[in-house]
């Protein structure tokens, strides 16, 4: 059995999960911190 399709599938899945989790976490932190800073400025 050719192992490379399995290896590529496993690495591909990990790549997608890592990139998606990264983008999600960065975007959520940036958005929340920016909004919090904006609100504080209005005080």
């Amino acid at each position, binding site marked *: 059995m050719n192992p490379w399709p399995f290896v590529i599938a*496993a*690495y591909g899945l990990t790549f997608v999960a890592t990139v998606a989790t990264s983008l999600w*976490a960065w975007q*959520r932190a940036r958005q929340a911190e920016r909004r*919090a800073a904006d609100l504080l400025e209005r005080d």
Partner: protein
Amino acid sequence: MHVLANPRRFLAIAVPATPWCFWGGIALILAGCWAGLFVAPADYLQGHSFRILYIHVPAAWLGMGGWSGLTIAAIMQLVWRHPLASVAGRAIAVPGAIFTALCLATGSIWGRPTWGTWWEWDGRLTSMLLLLFLYIGYIALARSSVERGDAGGVSRVTAIYALIGALNLPVIHYSVVWWNSLHQAKSISIVRMSSSIDPSMLWPLGLTVLGFTLWFTAIVLLRMRAMLAENRIEARLRRMSRG
């Protein structure tokens, strides 16, 4: 520990630490994957399919390490009422669940060419699947307690649930020892500082495990920062609506 009790002091460390952990982790992951795919020699028995090891082991480590983190956070919440503990618990749960799922998926992909099956109800596989279900339960409990407004954190029931779930961790670890299992026994003994993985195949694993751990730390810090900021926004909006 109590130096970090104040969210402001926590943020003074977390904000500059985040990009270092994140990019350092990504660099190590890329180096480790490249070495694992192209530098390490093929296994004498499994050939190239063993290369899945370099992502499967870090995923298992993060899935189990994540629940260990939840357990520590739960103890800090129950015993010391540490204000950041429940935020940390919520921040860890989702990436921990993602990597537990990834461990199961990569293991399944590995199992097909090596064992000849995608899935078997063996002790190790079953206890790891239970860990994924435990994570899903934790996330649901934490979400419902936050929605009920438990001071921006998770309820005590959720923390106790994390403690009970920790019982599954030794079961996962010893499943290959206690029961005849399809999954092989562990290859690396930290206590005895020994490994049955040849050094030429071991060092890329060190890179990916360290890399994914750093990266996971960065994700948890980012999620904690987001939750703390969201708490500030909510508190501010509540004051405005009252005011």
